[in-house]
C-alpha cells in the first residue's frame, strides 16, 4: 500500500514533486483548477493534511494560486517556471553525478543515442 513512497524525502515533498511533474506535462493545464484535497487524498490514499502541505509547497513555489472560494489554480506561466527550475536542478546537481558516472564507465558523447528508443 505504501510502496509508492520511498524513504528519502517526507511524503508531502514526494507528493509535491509528483504533482509538479504532472504540471510540467500540462496536467492540469495552466489556468485550470487543481483537484481538491479530498480527491487527491483519495487518489493517493494519503492523509488530507499531507495533501494540503504538498499543495501549499507548490503554492509557495509560485506554481498555484488560491482563488477565493474556488480553490487552487495553476498559475499562468507555471510550466515555464517549473521547466526553468528543473533545468537548473538537473544542471547543478544531477549532471555532475551523471558526468562522473559516465566518465567512470568510459562513455562519451559518441556512444549516446538521442533517438527515442520507442
Amino acid at each position, binding site marked *: *500500500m505504501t510502496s509508492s513512497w*520511498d524513504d528519502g524525502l517526507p511524503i508531502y515533498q514526494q507528493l509535491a514533486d509528483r504533482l509538479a511533474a504532472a504540471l510540467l506535462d500540462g496536467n492540469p493545464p495552466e489556468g485550470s483548477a487543481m483537484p481538491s484535497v*479530498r480527491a487527491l487524498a483519495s487518489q493517493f490514499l494519503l492523509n*488530507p*493534511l499531507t495533501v494540503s*502541505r504538498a499543495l501549499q509547497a507548490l503554492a509557495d513555489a509560485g506554481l498555484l494560486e488560491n482563488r477565493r472560494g474556488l480553490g487552487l489554480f495553476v498559475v499562468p506561466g507555471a510550466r515555464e517556471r517549473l521547466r526553468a527550475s528543473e533545468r537548473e536542478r538537473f544542471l547543478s546537481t544531477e549532471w555532475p553525478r551523471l558526468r562522473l558516472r559516465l566518465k567512470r564507465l568510459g562513455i562519451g558523447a559518441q556512444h549516446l543515442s538521442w533517438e527515442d528508443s520507442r
Partner: protein
Amino acid sequence: MIPQPLVRAEGLSVRYGARTALQDLSFEIPKGRVVGLLGHNGAGKTTLMKALVGLKTAQGRLQVLGMDPVRERVALLQSACYIPDVATLPRWARVHELIRLMSGLHPRFSAERARELLRRTSVGLDDKVSRLSKGMVAQAHLALVASIDARLMILDEPTLGLDVLSRKAFYEMLIDEWCDGERSVLVSTHQVEEIESLLSDVMMLNEGRLVLSISLEDLDRRFMALGHDPAVADRIAQAHPLLRYRGAAGATALFDGAPPPDIQALGQRVRPSLVDLFVALTRKPELDRRHF
C-alpha cells in the same frame, strides 16, 4: 478562540487490580486528525480505547467531546463510535436488516448514507453476514459506523486478519468517506507501514506509558535518520543515535534531534520510518539482533 480538542487526557491511569495497564497519559486529539495508536501486544492500546468510550474507569482527567466518558457515556456515544477488536456482526442477519436495526438504535444513523456507502463495496443489501468474506464484513461494519453522524471514530485493529486488497478498500473508505477535516479517527494497528501515509499523528504506547505523541509534521522535524557508509559506523555510533538499523538506503542511524554537522556530513538524510522509530522507542535496540 482555540477550538476544543475532541479528546483531552491529563494524568490518565488505569489499573487492573495490582497491575497498572496505563500510567500517567497526557495527550490531546484535535479535530480533523487521523491518529495511529501503536504498541506491542499488552501495551495498553485496547484499554486506552475502552477508557475513551467509558468502558473502563480511569484515574486522572479525561474529556471526550467535552464529556466524562463514564458518567455521560450514553450522550457520548451519540457522537463517538467505536469498533472493538472483537467486534462481530450477527451472522444470521442480512445487511438490510442491520441497517434497519441501526436506524432504530442510533438517533444519528443515516440509513440512506449506509446504503450509499455499501454501493461502493461488493456487499449486497440482501447478503447474509455469514456468507460474506472477512474483508466484506469489515467493510460493511465500517460503512454502518461511518453512517453515524459522529465526530470521533475509534478503531481497534480494524484490519486484523484481512488480506491486502480488503485492507486497502477499508482504508480507502475511511479516507474518502470519513475524513472531512472536522472528524477525527484513532486507529490501532500492527501494520504500521501500511497506514503511515494515512496518519496525521502518532501515539506510541510501551508497557502502559505514552512514549511518543506527535504529529507527523513535527516528527519529520524532530527526528533525523542518516543513511551512511558502514565504514563510518563507529563515528556515527559515538554521536549516540537512538537506533542503528539497515534501511532501504543501507546502514541507517536514527537521531532524536539533529546530530552535530560533522556527523550529518558523514551520511545522507533519509525519512525516518515509523516502524524504525517505534522499535527504537519501545525496546532496547541492543537486545534486538535484527538491528546490528
